[in-house]
């Protein structure tokens, strides 16, 4: 479309108007990949919320089935190393994987964006101090940091949320600060300042609405990172503790089935892959349409 940096402003009015006219049409034309991504996310969300009530089998029931049984009518995804139904295990694990990751992501983004807005609005020493200390945090390898925290405070769900939030807040801060500093230079923010508005108002009402779009895209991406971090920690045995299991610990539990090509090990791994890829597809589709509409 029309390049915004075009040196001659004379005819801008028309192309811009055209873009505005045809916008609803573009909205409708979301890519097939995006729709697929959203569908998979919706499926996993439903599994997390309603899954446990809808399962016919008790996931803890070891029954009489064989260990590492193949897929079949009785056990759709086979059985695990104790003979439990794998499908039920995965559905029950969804709330840990999705739930913990979602809460951790929201915490990370909320903390990152709040600090970023504060830094952008106040500037000066506060900005420098926060930026440098968060840079310091980034320089610590995330897995090392997570292991250290678990070693010190023990594995628990609130601890995992806290760790993931601390690890991923600086990234959200960096992006939000870069966006907010640009918005902060706008005349409407100057007008608000000359009105004598407080820091909180400028952060929340003047700047936040204008960085919300890109930050939502970032939220989705950050969610993927957190899922992978949590799955990795569970695989290492420092995540969700037995008898509960998220997808990462399911892979770890059933690692013995690797040599038998049991579905018990491939199914949770596929679950992790499908969720992360779906979120990425959805972000691309949403982020793309957002960028075009601007």
């Amino acid at each position, binding site marked *: 479309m029309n390049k915004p940096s075009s040196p001659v402003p004379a005819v801008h009015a028309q192309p811009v108007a*055209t873009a505005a006219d045809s916008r609803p049409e573009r909205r409708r034309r979301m890519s097939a990949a995006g729709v697929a991504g959203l569908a998979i996310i919706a499926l996993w969300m439903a599994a997390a919320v309603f899954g446990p009530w809808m399962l016919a089998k008790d996931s803890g029931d070891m029954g009489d089935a064989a260990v590492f049984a193949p897929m079949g009518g009785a056990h759709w995804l086979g059985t695990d190393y104790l003979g439990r139904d794998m499908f039920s295990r995965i559905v029950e694990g969804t709330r840990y994987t999705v739930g913990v990751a979602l809460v951790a992501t929201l915490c990370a983004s909320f903390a990152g964006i709040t600090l970023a807005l504060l830094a952008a609005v106040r500037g000066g020493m506060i900005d420098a101090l926060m930026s440098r200390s968060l840079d310091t945090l980034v320089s610590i390898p995330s897995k090392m940091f997570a292991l250290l925290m678990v070693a010190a405070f023990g594995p628990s769900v609130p601890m995992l949320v806290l760790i993931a939030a601390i690890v991923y807040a600086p990234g959200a801060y960096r992006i939000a600060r870069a966006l907010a500093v640009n918005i902060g230079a706008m005349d409407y923010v*100057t007008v608000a300042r000359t009105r*004598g*508005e407080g820091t909180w108002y400028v952060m929340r009402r003047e700047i936040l609405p204008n960085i919300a779009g890109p930050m939502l895209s970032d939220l989705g991406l950050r969610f993927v990172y957190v899922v992978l971090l949590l799955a990795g920690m569970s695989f290492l045995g420092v995540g969700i503790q037995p008898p509960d299991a998220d997808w990462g610990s399911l892979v770890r539990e059933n690692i013995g089935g690797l040599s038998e090509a049991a579905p018990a090990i491939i199914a949770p791994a596929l679950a992790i892959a499908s969720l992360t890829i779906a979120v990425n597809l959805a972000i691309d589709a949403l982020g793309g349409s957002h960028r075009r509409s601007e």
Partner: protein
Amino acid sequence: MGASVAVQGLRIVAGEGDAGQVIVHDLSFAVKPGEVLALIGESGSGKTTTALALMGYAREGCRIAAGTVEIGGVDVLSLDGEGQRRLRGRTVAYVAQSAAQSFDPSRTLIDQVTEPARIHGLMSPAAAKAKALALFHELALPDPDHIGERYPHQVSGGQLQRIMAAMALITDPDLIILDEPTTALDVTTQIEVLRAFRRVVRERRATAVYVSHDLAVVAQMADHILVLREGRMREWGGTNRVITAPEDDYTRRLLAAARPEVQEVAAARGEAELLLEVRDLAAGYGPLDAAGRHQVPILQDIELRLHRGQAIGVIGESGSGKTTLARAIAGLVKPSGGSILFNGSYLAPTLAKRRKDELRRIQIVFQMADTALNPAHTIEAILARPLQFFHGLRGAPLQARIGELLDLVKLPQSLRQRRPSGLSGGQKQRVSLARALAAKPDLILCDEVTSALDTVVGAAILELIADLRRTLGVSFLFISHDMHTVRAVCDEIVVMQGGRKLTQIARADYARGPHHPYYELLSRSVPELRTGWLDELPATDAPELAV
């Protein structure tokens, strides 16, 4: 000697297929060899699009749907890509509005000026260089033999614009397209550039198309004027005829807006109390020296007195410090010296230390209405905030006051729920004014509020400001680079240059001279709306020539 140009049924469409929006509607015109045609219109009138189509070029997203463009008997639009490439820069040359953006910052000027000759293989590098130097002489550039060795950032905007003209002329094109070549320049610089352009165009008997929104500038340059509006031709005729006896209603409005009427406001000057007093104000950037002055001073020894109900215009060229003065009064720039008194009490240098009531009494309106309104809020929310913040209004009284404000700036109530992106430039500027008025201020600082608007729209804003002064008695500090704007709305004019106040002139004395020489120079430099004005101007007004 230039070639003739004939355009038949030119239609340019944005977007694909039948759904596309027509930007230029079946335009037909002709230019005789050696004549200059001016394309006049507001932004969005399709004047630049038309000019670009003369080179067979349509901007990305647009296409030339129908019509023919003949230059010297050759149909430009029927040429293939290779043929058009041979045409551009050789048969047709283009001088863009912003020379600063059009030059490659990493190469010397002479290298870029001789490039068209090199691309088209017209002459040896030595011959091209000699020709470029001759053109530099002809365009009255300072130090013409060596200026080409410099890089684009080492010359001024006006010089760069002339060097761009040299680049266009080096291939002796049959047609020169000048696209708003002086719009970004200060008035005193504009004269020099206009003079140089006209000389080279006349001496070569070149055919030229001059795109502009400024009728007064065009009157000096063109033989014929074509008025465009929304892609349609409104009027086409000889320059003198169009200016003195316009046939079209829209042309008449353009002419009226080009010279805004002086808005009479009965200003009670003597008996009114002193509202704002600026004493010995200084501001700048960089570290402070031993005397407490900034290393790079922007304002020095500024004295200003503004009475209640008065409007004072601050005029100066770019870099004169006029915007910094407004920002210092608003508390956005911390002064390094001097003091500001408002209503008889000293104002703190920074916003944080000023009282809420002091902040309410001084409001600021910016040049770019696009960035002055938060795109995420509705118009209603934008106007409601200062009412809630300063006056604590809620519910029905708040809604009623928003309605009053919209009426005051003559905007329909239906705009309430819209966001700024759904408003035109003039409407946005009105919302900015309404937001300032919502605080019930004593003083509104207007920083180039009409500069980014089309002339007709800008004139309406000036009328509104005069209206507000009459009905509300608000004082204005009006910052502008445009002498006509300032004269139209202000009781007094303050002239600034290089961060210093040179002189202050009351409205009654505008016509009575003699004033400060720089004021005289500024007011003489504003092009007058009649042909032959540039010829009568004495050459001594050329500050750049004297260098």
